[in-house]
């Protein structure tokens, strides 16, 4: 009759209250659960049915760094540019050595399907989520920086000093490695990454690569695009137009 936890009388009452009130609440809000999911995050796991990717049009890439600023603001980065500061996204200026043509583009984690960083991580902290987003599980990252050595795109940053005032949605700390998360905290609630939203020319197109009818899939099917360092065979989730 008495349960193993040996709860006192008041706790038993509280428990009963919770049970009945939760039951009543469930009945009341069940119709709204779908919208609740969208607003506050899914209750089932992400799956391989979706593969998130981005298409970046370098022809439209303006002379600004709004994507960088948006990423910094969304993820709580300092925005500093010293060699020890984290940069999840950066503007890269290119000039063709032979022809002299100049262009610019944003560079961040390419979210490869065959990520070298995932292969080399000793603890499995660097991992690819089922929906294609490559992340660092900062709970088990030991800070060995092997993934930083392995990444062909210099996407990863190491946190060199103690951090304060992190964004509640984006935990980051000293001694672990981090990189662009494709704003999982936004994607998981149905929004698009901050950089894609901030670009004034809509040069960054975010979408589901596995959906043949999505805007990004249609565009990739009709217009030319390439992966950066396609020779490595990593099947990146990000593709660029105009390089």
């Amino acid at each position: 009759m008495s349960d193993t936890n040996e709860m006192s009388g008041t706790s038993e009452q509280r428990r009963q209250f919770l049970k009945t009130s939760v039951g009543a609440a469930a009945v009341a809000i069940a119709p709204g659960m779908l919208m609740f999911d969208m607003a506050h995050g899914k209750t089932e796991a992400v799956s391989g049915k979706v593969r998130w990717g981005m298409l970046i049009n370098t022809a439209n890439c303006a002379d600004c760094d709004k994507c960088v600023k948006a990423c910094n603001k969304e993820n709580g980065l300092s925005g500093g540019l010293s060699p020890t500061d984290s940069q999840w996204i950066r503007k890269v200026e290119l000039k063709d050595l032979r022809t002299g043509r100049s262009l610019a583009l944003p560079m961040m984690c390419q979210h490869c399907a065959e990520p070298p960083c995932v292969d080399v991580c000793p603890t499995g902290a660097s991992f690819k989520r089922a929906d294609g987003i490559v992340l660092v599980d900062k709970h088990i990252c030991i800070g060995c920086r092997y993934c930083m050595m392995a990444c062909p795109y210099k996407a990863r940053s190491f946190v060199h000093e103690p951090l304060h005032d992190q964004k509640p949605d984006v935990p980051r700390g000293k001694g672990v490695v981090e990189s662009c998360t494709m704003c999982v905290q936004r994607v998981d609630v149905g929004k698009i990454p901050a950089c894609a939203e901030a670009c004034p020319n809509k040069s960054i197109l975010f979408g589901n690569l596995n959906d043949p009818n999505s805007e990004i899939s249609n565009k990739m099917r009709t217009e030319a695009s390439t992966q950066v360092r396609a020779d490595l065979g990593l099947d990146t989730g990000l593709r660029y137009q105009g390089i």
Partner: protein
Amino acid sequence: MANHSPLRFKNRIFYTLVATGGLVVLMGLYAAHMMETHGHIITGMNNQIVWGMPHVFAIFLIVAASGVLNVSSIGSVFNKPAYKVRAPLAGLLSIAMLAGGLTVLMLDLGRPDRIIVAMTHFNSTSVFAWNIFLYSGMFAAVALYLWTMMEKRMNPWSKPAGLLVFVWRFVLTTGTGVIFSFLVARQAYGTAILPPMFIVISFAWGMAVFHVVQSSIYEWNKKLLDPYVQKRMKNLMGVLVIAAMYFVAAYHLTNLYFAKQTGFERFILLDGGVYPLLFWVGYVLLGNLLPLLLIYHPALGKSKSIVFASLLIILGGFCFLYVFIIGGQAFPLSIFPGYEVTSSFGDGAIGHYQPSLPEIMLGLGGVGIAFLITTIGIRVLDFVPHELPKST
């Protein structure tokens, strides 16, 4: 009462050595504590050069730890009696240097408090995860080997144990080489020649460390090394140095043939500033050519030359690793071949690295650990070689 003087002298040397080693280790641990408290910002490492001086020290110690067992292998596996008596000392040195190198690596982690996580979460495709097994298995294998050699009733087992250690250290050094081989995107690495190169280099460095340690022990204990054995050992060291040079030359010459690699080779060998300097002067001249002269010149090649040559080889080893590890990172990734690249994150730019005091202290702390283990080991157990009686 017996004359205390030689005993007191030896005791004083021992305690002085232990105190010095202990002090160096403490400094290293203090540096690690500083790094853990304040973060890697106090070191010279940054987002371009992610592995620095601690890794130079650690990889030297680990590679030499594997190579010093060459002495034992020649004794146990290839049955040369002159080397067999040196096998226990080589085993001790191996354990000591491995312990020192691993300590430096683990303390340099961004989160050293998560070592337990590293021991319980394994990614089967990661070399680092394999290495956790290889290195701890190495300790066990060498300890087993030492036991078979030092306990009389186990002596018949020393040959199989020696074979186990021989095979294990090949696998271990290959594991060290493939850490770099598997980095496909870096121009300095990503090549299959690295594991054999590391194996042969380990032989050379291990031999050099063994010579230095053995000579010091014999000098302070008024022991004499049979000149014949000394000659054989120094010649072997010479051969190993030449073999190591061959592999390094093959690596660079092949790289020079690839058009996409010439920029990197130019940087390392010609206009990279400190890197060509360390490579040509530190590694090739002081670390290879001068020791070879000291070893093979007919007028030289005695005890002092050998110790000096060994020290130079060790110095050359550090220079080589500095160029390999840090120079390899300083050269920018080729993300957009055919383009000139600039960005706020150092794309297209040579990375700058300034070794800092905490890093050097940490690295030296690892050497101190190896030193302490060796010194105390020799004192309490029977590791010093029992020289064979001279054959007439």
